[in-house]
């Protein structure tokens, strides 16, 4: 048995690409995207916030093996938590994380809608979340 498709019904790859680009353009015009972009730039340029992030990441890296083994001594665990709270307390980090969360919700809503229309999960097909 073969699939018979009326060629007149088919959207060419270039038409699909254009629809994808139009979608991306529409997404980039949303307040959620613009806020996310704004705080991404602010976060990159905020020296104090970058210092706290690097301090946390450095500590995390130095404890990687112990973390993987779930064998972190309590004092190291406390220090790691303190460094995490330090960067989470930075106003620009807070603003960035809120903006990111808002953008995630918007992207999820859009992919849910896409999935409902096309009858396939867009995120599952793209193997999202598994990098």
């Amino acid at each position, binding site marked *: *048995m073969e*699939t*018979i*498709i009326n060629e007149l*019904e*088919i*959207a060419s*790859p270039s*038409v*699909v*690409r254009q*629809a*994808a*680009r*139009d*979608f*991306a*353009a*529409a*997404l*980039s*015009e*949303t*307040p959620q*995207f613009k806020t996310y972009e704004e705080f991404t730039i602010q976060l990159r340029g905020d020296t104090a916030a970058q210092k706290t992030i690097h301090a946390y990441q450095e500590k995390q890296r130095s404890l990687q093996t112990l973390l993987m083994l779930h064998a972190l001594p309590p004092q190291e665990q406390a220090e790691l938590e303190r460094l995490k709270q330090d960067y989470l307390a930075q106003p620009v980090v807070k603003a960035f994380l809120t903006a990111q969360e808002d*953008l*995630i*919700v*918007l*992207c*999820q*809503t*859009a*992919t*849910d*809608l*896409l999935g*409902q*229309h*096309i*009858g*396939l999960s*867009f*995120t*599952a*097909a*793209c*193997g*999202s*979340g*598994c*990098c």
Partner: protein
Amino acid sequence: MNTNLTKIPPGLLAATKALAETLLHSEPLLAYHQAKTHLERDAEASAFLERLSTVQNEFRVRQSNGSVTQADIDRLRVLQNEVQANKIIMLFVETQQAAIAYLPEVNKEISQLLGFDFAGMAGPASC
């Protein structure tokens, strides 16, 4: 679905619907939906799949309590062979795989413009 729609700005909602409509007219998705319709309309193919699902479930139960017999294995294998020999089912499976393989290309196009992995942003963060 309707609760979600209220959160989407109108421009994005229109672009999402337009993209969905265009995707439905792309060759891989047209083929998939056509094969799916054939499958749903074919009583024999649907019955095969239903029977396979039942037998697989029974097999799993027997596996969990250690009571699988050679007859169970043979029964499952025969049914799997019958399903694989069914052209309607196999066409559905093939077109579904092709449609699923096509969507990352669309995601790549979107992501290039946005500067981040769009589906990754929308999907569960597992890493």
